[in-house]
C-alpha cells in the first residue's frame, strides 16, 4: 500500500507540477521566438490564414494519392493507436474521475470491458509501430532517443493498465501503483519530447498551411 500512497501523493504532485511548468515553458519559448517576416508578395491564390490553416489540417488527415501506397501502414496503424489512446484516456471511468478531480470537467464513460478490448488493440498497434521502426532501415537510422523513449513512456501506461486490470503477476495495489508511476513518467516527458505534438500538431499543421497558401499551393 505504501507504494500506492507514494504514487498517488508525492509522485503525481511532482509529475503534474513538471507537466504544467514544462508546458508553459514550451508554449512561451515557442510563441515568443522570432519569426522572420515573409516580405514576399503572396500568391493570387492565397487564402485567408484561417481558411488555409483549416484546409491544411483537414488535408493532412489523409495522405495524398501519390503517398497512399507507401504510407498506408503508418497511416492506419497511427490512427488505430491514436484513437485507442484517446478512448482509453478519456472514456474510462477512473480516468475521467482523475481529470474531474483536477479540472472539474467530466463526461460519460464507456464500459470497462470495451476499454479493455481497445487497450489490447492499442498495445498491439504500438508494438507494430515499434516493429516497423526496427524493421525499416531508413526509419531506424533517423530514430533518436526521443523516438524510442517517447514510444516507451506511451506504451508503459497502457501495458501497466492492462496488467493491473487483469491482476497479473502481483497484487492489484502494486500494479495500480506502477500504472500511476508510468503515467507520472509520461506526464514529465510530455512537454519536452516529440510527444509535445499532442498539443502542437494542429498548430504546426495550420502554420504550414498558411505558408503553403502564401506560396500559392492548392490546398
Amino acid at each position, binding site marked *: *500500500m*505504501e507504494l*500506492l*500512497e507514494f504514487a*498517488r*501523493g508525492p509522485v*503525481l*504532485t511532482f509529475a*503534474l*507540477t*513538471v507537466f*504544467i*511548468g*514544462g*508546458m*508553459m*515553458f*514550451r*508554449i*512561451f*519559448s*515557442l*510563441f*515568443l*521566438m*522570432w519569426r*522572420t517576416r515573409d516580405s514576399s508578395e503572396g500568391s493570387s491564390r492565397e487564402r485567408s490564414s484561417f481558411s488555409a490553416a483549416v484546409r491544411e489540417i483537414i488535408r493532412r488527415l489523409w495522405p495524398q494519392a501519390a503517398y497512399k501506397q507507401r504510407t498506408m501502414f503508418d497511416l492506419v496503424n497511427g490512427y488505430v493507436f491514436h484513437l485507442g489512446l484517446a478512448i482509453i484516456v478519456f472514456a474510462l*471511468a*477512473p*480516468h475521467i*474521475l*482523475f481529470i474531474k*478531480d*483536477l479540472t472539474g470537467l467530466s463526461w460519460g*464513460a*464507456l*464500459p*470497462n*470491458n470495451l476499454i479493455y478490448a481497445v487497450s489490447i488493440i492499442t498495445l498491439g498497434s504500438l508494438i507494430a509501430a515499434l516493429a516497423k521502426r526496427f524493421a525499416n532501415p531508413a526509419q531506424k537510422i533517423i530514430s533518436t532517443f526521443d523516438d524510442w523513449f517517447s514510444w516507451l513512456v506511451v506504451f508503459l501506461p497502457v501495458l501497466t493498465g492492462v496488467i493491473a486490470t487483469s*491482476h497479473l503477476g502481483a497484487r*492489484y*495495489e502494486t500494479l*495500480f501503483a506502477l500504472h500511476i508511476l508510468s503515467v507520472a513518467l509520461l506526464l514529465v516527458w510530455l512537454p519536452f519530447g516529440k510527444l509535445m505534438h499532442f498539443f502542437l500538431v494542429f498548430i504546426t499543421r495550420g502554420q504550414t498551411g498558411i505558408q503553403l497558401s502564401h506560396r500559392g499551393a492548392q490546398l
Partner: protein
Amino acid sequence: MSDKKTLGEMLTERGVSRRTFLKYASYTASILALPPTAATAIAQGIANARRQSVIWLSFQECTGCTESITRAHTPSIEDLIFDFISLDYHHTLMNASGHLAEEARLQAMADNAGEYIVIVDGSVPLKDDGIYSTIAGITNLQMLQETVKDAFAVIAVGSCATFGGIPGAHPNPTGAVPVSEIVTDKPIINISGCPPIPEAMTGTIAYLLSFGSIPELDELGRPKAFYGEAIHDRCYRRPFYERGMFARSFDDEGARQGWCLYEVGCKGPVTYNACATLKWNGGVSFPIQSGHGCLGCSEPNFWDMGGFYKPLSTATGDPLKWAGGAAVAGAAIGAASAVLARTKRNKAIKAGARKPSQEAK
C-alpha cells in the same frame, strides 16, 4: 487457567452434542477455506486439545475489536470459542480488577510458559517513553515485552495492533506502532480490520487449537483464508463497475439502484478482507451492501489514504499546489529563453555574422 480435561470431554459435560460440534468444525473449515476433509481434523484437533491459555492485552484501542468478537454470528461459536480457550486476562471480560487482574496475568504466564497465546488489540505508544498509555503502572511497551516473552504465538487483532491504526494516523502524536514492530522473535498473526470480522478472529484461534500451527499468511501476516481476496473482486456490485455504472452521490439514482460506489470513494479494489463473502451481523450485510463505500479499514494507513470519499484513481493531497508557481516559472523561463534567442540573433545580425541559410529558417 488451563484445564487437565480435553475440550471434547468438557463440551460433552456441558451437553454440547456431537452433531453441534461437527457442524461447528465444518463451518470453521469452510471459512478457513480448507478442504471438507479438514473438518474432521479440526473436530479431532479441538476435541483432543487442552484449554488454551489466552492473555488478551488491550492498549491504545477503542474496545471495538472485543465488541466484534463477542458478536460472532453463529450462536454457538461465541460460547464454543470461550469454552475452547481459557481467557486468563482481558480488561473488558474478566471479573477481576486491579492487582488481582495483574496477578492472574502473571499466574497464567507462569503456569503455561511457552504455550499461551497473547492476543493484542490496540497500538503501542513509544513517544516519550510510552507514557501515553499505561496499565497497572507500567507502559504498554513494558507489558507487551514482559507478556510475550514466554508466549507460543501472538495474535494482533484490529488495525491498531496490526498496522498502528487510528492512533498511528498522521500526525501520530503518541508515536504509536503496531505489535510487529516490537515483537520480532515470536510468530505473529495479524487479524486486521476496524474492527476485524468476528469469524476471522475465532476461525484463526480455532485453527491454532486444531492444528497447533500458524495458518498460511499473506505478506502482511494475515491469514490468507480471510485476507486472500480483494473486496472489489468478490463484491456483488462489481458488474456495475465493469459496465461503468456508478453512484455519483449517496442520494442519486445510481445509489438507489445499487450501482458501484467507486466514484464516491470505495476502497474495495485495494482492500483485502472477507466482508463481501462472510459479511457482518449474521451474514446480513456489509458496508457496501448498506450503501457506503469500503473504507479500506483492514489495510495499513487506511486513515491517511487520501480521504474516504475521494475516488481511488485520483491524486491524494493537493496535486496542483505548486501548479500556479510552476506555470509562472515555466512561462518566465520560456519567455527568457525566447528573449535570449532574439538577443543573440540581433547581436549576430549587427555583427554581420548572419548567414543567408539561417535566415531562411
